[in-house]
């Protein structure tokens, strides 16, 4: 295999984030059992799990490549692509469903032109459907850039997304 053996605390690329990842791997004694913990750590450090990163982890934990890929794609929490600048996480739990999360979904999708599970082409907004964020008392709920917003209605939801869009326009890249 044309891949370098993992060297401790230094990645050939000089990317320091690998030092952090190595620390997480060492904490678990490089055990294959810790694969999910290490994937969590890697996603926390790198934002998402791209193929090269998964190969690095597979080598570090001495696991077959397909095993690592299989685990990473089994769990919804792990992302293989980066999220947009803003994230709109809509709760699709039962309470939110009963209280009209469907209408929010429809309106936001229509506004953004992409479906939940996708990111707008300008990489500004990712629409993410969550199983249940556990704030059922406030249904329908969405988590907008990590802030829980309860008792949301479709128009407010679109308004929030609009604010993100305006802000992007103000600061040209």
């Amino acid at each position, binding site marked *: 295999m044309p891949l370098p053996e993992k060297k401790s605390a230094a990645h050939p690329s000089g990317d320091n984030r690998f030092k952090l990842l190595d620390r997480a791997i060492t904490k678990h004694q490089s055990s294959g059992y810790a694969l*999910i913990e290490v994937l969590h750590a890697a996603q926390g450090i790198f934002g998402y799990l791209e193929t090269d990163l998964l190969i690095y982890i597979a080598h570090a934990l001495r696991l077959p490549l397909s095993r690592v890929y299989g685990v990473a794609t*089994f769990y919804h929490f792990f992302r293989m692509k980066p999220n947009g600048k803003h994230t709109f996480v809509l709760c699709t739990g039962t309470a939110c469903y009963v209280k009209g999360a469907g209408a929010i979904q429809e309106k936001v999708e229509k506004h953004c032109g992409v479906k939940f599970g996708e990111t707008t082409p300008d990489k500004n907004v990712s629409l993410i459907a969550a199983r249940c*964020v*556990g704030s*059922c008392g*406030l249904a329908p709920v969405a988590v907008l850039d990590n802030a829980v917003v309860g008792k949301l209605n479709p128009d407010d939801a679109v308004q929030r997304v609009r604010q993100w869009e305006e802000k992007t326009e103000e600061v040209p890249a």
Partner: protein
Amino acid sequence: MTLEDLNEVAEKELARQQALKNRVLYCSAAGCVSCGSEATRDAFKASLKEKGLEKEIEVIGSGCMGLCGEGPLVKIASDDTLYQNVDEDAAQKIVRQHLLDGKKVENNALDPANPFFSSQLKIVLENFGRINAERIEEYIAVDGYEALAKALTEMKPDEVIDEIRKSGLRGRGGAGYPTGLKWGIVRKAASDQKYVICNADEGDPGAFMDRSVLEGDPHRILEGMAIAAYAVGANQGYIYIRAEYPLAIERLRLAIKQAERLGLLGNRIFESQFNFRIDLRIGAGAFVCGEETALIRSIEGRRGSPKPRPPYPSEKGLFGAPTLLNNVETYANVAPIINRGSAWFAAIGTPKSTGTKVFALAGKIKNTGLIEVPMGIPLRTVIFDIGGGTPEGTEFKAAQTGGPSGGCIPNDHLDLPVDYESLATVGSIMGSGGMIVMDSESKMVDVAKYFMEFCADESCGKCVPCRVGTKHIYLLLDKISKGNATADDVALLEELCEMVKDTSLCGLGQSAPNPVLSTLRFFRHEYEELLKPVETYIPSDVHE
């Protein structure tokens, strides 16, 4: 740490609290935090500082206080007044009127005689609104870790198991397997290495009991697990918790650190031979990992695909060793049973379903939130007295319990007592405690479709009936809801539901058809109204 040390911590903490003039407990559970309870806290602190009372009256975060729909909630410790919708203005008002002048702020105060409070009975949630979840001293001050001390210093493992068995406690994760029996099996399994796992992978959409317990009283779980580990002979525990619960994860991490610091986790706990450690394992978004064999695989770093049982985890579980797996609420009941005795616990509820059950009330209901009721309480009391019924202008249609594995219970069955067996007679299950109320606006075919979409999406894909069957059940429901189906399709739907139930590998698949079967049972007319006739041969004389 010895028993004397423990008492000393408790006394010191109680003395500290005595010295205070009052305590303001704001709800620091995720629901209230997202309504702005942290701003409320800051307003209290600022206002108290302004009056020079910041040393005499402390403002602390506590566990979920129930009425999540009316947050932020705040409790005043001296007279147990509970306030709702406490925004920053209300906070200042409470400081001025209540804390300084001793007059309740009527606009925000909740009436303690309200059936929302009076019909409940709190064991699991008893410390909510009483203690600061982030300080182990406060937990110890309300007799925390005393049950563990008692078990380790006064009881043999078999006596602990016997006590749990006599209490009649059954698994609160949904299936209701007798807890004492399960512990006994793991105890008997011959092995040098055993594990104890807490299933905190609360995946039912519409359920947040476990999250609230972990956020509001994390030490209760650690203590319950330690007692269980002592009883079955384990020295390592894992809490498998959803990544979606960052606050609960944070609180647990803190609680474990505090318990280790005081020697309540670690080696030779209470100077016994018992060693026990707990580690967290963070789930990664897979409902199926609530199934015990899948959960174990996930802790082992694998895809969460269930394995056929037998062998059961109690014989061959985590890393092949005998493993005890219980749910959060089950562990939360352990310490009170050891402290107060099995007879006390067994007297609550019904003979076959003892104790209390925590429910998360949500959906089309006035009082949404977290409640705890004695087993056997009529469903009607839960929904109409505690929950306050459906909002004005709508009519109650069904209560959904058990999440995607449960069923919809119609009006006619509302006098049913809430216990494991009764809920099963109407095709639902106790489940982990989600209770979603639906009103006349909810279309039951769509409700069934919603759950089936969930199950199909959460199927691990290992066994054929669940992987493909749930997809086809969903497609049939979709066809029905769009008015394209015939009576033949409904017959096929029923046959497929029975088949998936009968043949799936694990509980997820076996129970996935329940929402369909229960809505077919009680709301069949809603299906039939959507059907169209089968096109067939028409003789030409009829044609013309």
